[in-house]
């Protein structure tokens, strides 16, 4: 058992089964990014997917909408800086739809952003649990939260949900993205507290 802090009572007394270990409940929506917020125009936004053999697919805004967005409701998100936000609502296109009919041996995907950010994710694990999201709480996604389009992978720490998403690169072998090269975990499961190396 850890070390007690005499006189510290804390605010939230009842244990919550919906908060992963070490997380606290946040009602605002803090921002974490490694650099300035890039301003990406939805009209000029494109998403490019590249397979391990070099095959490419590209979508623009309308092309993304044509894949069939859905409402993602009552979703909990967990940031590695220890805040969690419960019951959030998003609109986005399931990641699976971007991969429909594709021949690939890839087991990982590197998501890339307009500002050069990258993050690696296990492909099979996130299929059915990841979206390309463009609305938060019924409104267009704000730039500081990754608008116009970000990845949404709620079951992993939120740095895996790349903001300003512009590319998906399928990979046979895993490779570290930006934070993963800078001290953070390759996988990032909040329930197992996979925060750091």
């Amino acid at each position: 058992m850890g070390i007690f802090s005499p006189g510290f009572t804390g605010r939230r007394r009842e244990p919550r089964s919906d908060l992963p270990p070490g997380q606290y409940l946040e009602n605002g929506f803090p921002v974490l990014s490694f650099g300035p917020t890039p301003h990406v125009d939805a009209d000029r936004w494109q998403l490019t997917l590249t397979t391990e053999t070099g095959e490419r697919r590209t979508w623009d805004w309308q092309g993304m909408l044509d894949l069939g967005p859905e409402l993602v409701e009552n979703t909990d998100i967990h940031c590695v800086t220890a805040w969690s936000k419960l019951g959030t609502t998003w609109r986005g296109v399931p990641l699976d739809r971007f991969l429909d009919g594709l021949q690939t041996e890839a087991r990982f995907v590197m998501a890339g952003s307009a500002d050069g950010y990258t993050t690696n994710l296990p492909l099979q694990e996130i299929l059915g649990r990841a979206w390309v999201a463009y609305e938060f709480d019924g409104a267009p996604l704000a730039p500081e939260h990754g608008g116009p389009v970000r990845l949404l992978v709620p079951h992993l720490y939120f740095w895996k949900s790349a903001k300003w998403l512009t590319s998906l690169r399928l990979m046979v072998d895993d490779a570290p993205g930006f934070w993963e090269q800078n001290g953070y975990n390759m996988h990032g499961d909040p329930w197992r507290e996979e925060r750091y190396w």
Partner: protein
Amino acid sequence: MSSSWVPATLVDAWRETPGSRTLVLDARLEPALAGQHLDIRLTADDGYTAQRSYSLGSPAGAERFQVTVDRLDQGEVSPYLVDGLQVGHQIEVRGPVGRWFVWEPTQTEPIQLLAGGSGIVPLMSMIRTRELAGGTAPMRLLYSVRAPGDRFYTDELDDLAARGRIDLQYVFTREVPEGWPARAGRITGALLHELTLPPEDGPTIYVCGPTGFVEAATKPLMQFGHEASRIKTERFGPTG
């Protein structure tokens, strides 16, 4: 870096301002780089825990780890660290964390630092690290605070500025010192243009503070022509 919690003993502490306190911690952690942070964990007697991140203000490699915590009156963790924790008592820490928002003495390019409020802490670590290394690359600090009495490390910074070791610029957002030539107000593009190193100097820029400050500072800097890849940011929290 270690991903497990270790005990840390508070060996010394002092007020930095009426609402903030510097804590000196003794903990068996790996040496830090300038700009890194620790996670601090508190445990109530019923086992309830709360953790938050705090940047290190001590120089890279320092034997003792130093943080400066600003009290948020409604906050869960910061009031305890500022007013509750006693010298000799222990908390738990983890880290040091982060490999991106760091400055290393091997960097020779000019450095522009921009701090909003407690965002000065990791930048102070960079300044102190450069002092210890006898670094000569130009370093300029723009430090935005509400009022003169809210400044951290005032004597140390003023002394470094007086000796020409850093170029120091204050911006006061609510209240200015007597006789101050400018009015109180938040940073603007015009002010940043006047007070920060221009893109021609090729600086690496470190911006740290509340999210609103970081956003307000980085947008104009990019418009002046600084490359986004040369602007490193650390966002402390949602408000400003």
